[in-house]
C-alpha cells in the first residue's frame, strides 16, 4: 500500500478516535460539573435558609409586645425554626422551609390588624428583609431544581446515559416539600 494512502487512513482513524474519546471524556466531565453545580446551588439555598432562620427571633421579639395574644402563631414560627435548625436531609429542610414560609405569611397577614405594629420601623425593616430573603430563596430553589432537572435529563438521555451508567451517576431529587409532611399554619383572628 502506498505510504500516502496509509497516512491518510491513519489520520482518518486517529481523528475519529480523537473525536470519540474527547466526546466521552467531555461527557463525563460535563456530568461531574452538573453534579457539582447541584451541590453548589444547594449550598447557596442553605446560606439563605440560615439567614432567614437567624432573623426569626428578632421578628418575634419585635411583634410580641403588639400581638401578645397570638401565642399559637409564635409557637408555630418557633417550632418551624427549630425544625429547620435540626433538619439534616434535604427533605427535612424542604419541609421546614415550607413550614417557615407558611408561618411567616400568616404572621404578616395578621400584622395587618395591628396598625401600630405596621408603623414600627424595626418591624418594617425586618419584614422587608425577610420578604427579600423569601424571594431570593424561591429564586434559588427554582435554580436548584433547574440544575437537578438538567442533570437528570442528561443522565437519562442517549448517549450520555452510557457514561452515566458506567460511572454510577444517580438521579437527584428536587427540592420540594413532601405532601404528607406539610403542616398548615392557621391563624385565629
Amino acid at each position, binding site marked *: 500500500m502506498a505510504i500516502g494512502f496509509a497516512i491518510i487512513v491513519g489520520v482518518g482513524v486517529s481523528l475519529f478516535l480523537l473525536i470519540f474519546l474527547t466526546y466521552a471524556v467531555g461527557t463525563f466531565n*460535563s456530568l461531574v460539573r452538573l453534579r457539582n453545580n447541584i451541590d453548589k446551588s444547594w449550598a447557596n439555598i442553605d446560606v439563605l435558609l440560615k439567614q432567614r432562620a437567624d432573623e426569626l427571633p428578632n421578628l418575634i421579639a419585635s411583634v410580641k409586645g403588639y400581638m401578645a395574644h397570638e401565642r399559637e402563631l409564635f409557637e408555630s414560627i418557633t417550632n418551624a425554626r427549630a425544625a429547620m435548625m435540626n433538619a439534616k436531609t434535604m427533605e427535612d429542610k424542604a419541609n421546614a422551609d415550607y413550614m417557615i414560609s407558611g408561618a411567616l405569611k400568616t404572621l404578616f397577614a395578621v400584622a395587618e390588624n395591628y396598625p401600630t405594629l405596621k408603623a414600627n420601623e424595626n418591624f418594617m425593616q425586618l419584614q422587608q428583609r425577610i420578604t427579600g430573603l423569601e424571594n431570593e430563596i424561591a429564586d434559588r430553589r427554582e435554580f436548584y431544581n433547574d440544575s437537578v432537572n438538567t442533570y437528570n435529563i442528561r443522565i437519562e438521555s442517549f448517549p450520555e446515559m452510557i457514561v452515566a451508567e458506567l460511572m454510577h451517576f444517580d438521579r437527584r431529587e428536587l427540592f420540594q416539600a413532601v405532601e404528607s409532611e406539610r403542616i398548615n399554619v392557621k391563624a385565629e383572628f
Partner: protein
Amino acid sequence: MSDAEFKTLLLSFFGLGAGIYLFVNGFRWLREKRLIENTPTSKIRSLAMGLVEVFGEATPKDEKLIKAPFSNKDCLYCKYTIEEYRKSGKSSHWVTLKKAEDRTFFYLKDETGAVLIDTECANIDIPMDFEFDSSGGKDPPENIVKFLESNGMSFEGFLGFNKTMRYREYFIAPGDRVYVMGTADDNPFVYEGSSQKSEHDIMIRKGDSFYYISDKPEKDILGNYEWKVIGGLFGGSATIIVCLFVIFSILNML
C-alpha cells in the same frame, strides 16, 4: 511540477492548516456549548458569586452612553472596522485599516433586579448593525468623513478619486435584550454594606472562565454553537483528509 500543481499544493497546505484550526476549535466550541447548556439562567436578585448566566435588558449606568462613530447611535458597547479594497496585480482583497471597540458599564435588568456588566475581555457575539460602502461617486456621510479626519485617514486616494472603503459597526444599544455568561463578583464601585439591594453589590465581569455576551436568546446561541461544533469537528476532519489526499496525489505518494 507545473504552475497549476504548485498553486494547488499551496492551497492544499493552506486548507490543511485551516482544517486543523477548525478541528481544534471544534473541541473548544463543544466545551463552550456544554457550559451554556448546563448552566441554568439565574434571576438577578438572587445571583450567587461565581459563573452565572443571565438574560435581560441593557440599560445605561448613570445615563452614560457612547456614540457609535458611523451611525451616530447611542449605545453601550460598540465595535467598528474600516476596510479598504485594494488591488495588487491580478488579485484583490479587503484590508482592515482600523478595528476598535468602545465601551461603558451598563446594567442588565430582568423582572427581579439589575446587575452591573463590565464587557472588558468578553467574547461579544453580536450581528452587524450598520454598514456603509464608499467608492467612486459615492462619498461617505459627514460624520464618517469627520471620524476619518480625526484619525488621520481619508476616503480619497490618488488624484482625489474615492477609494473603495467599507465601514461596519456592531453595537449594543439601550433596550437590547442581552445574554451574559460570566463571573459574578464584588462590585468595586459600591462600598461594602452600603447598598440595601444585594444586586448592586455584584458585578458580572471576566473571571477565570468563559465570558460570553450576545444579543441572541440562549436557544439561538446553542443553535449556532451546534453548527460550529459540527463544522469544526467533522468539517475540519473532512478538510484535513481531503487536503492530505490532494497533497499526496500531487507528490505521487498515493
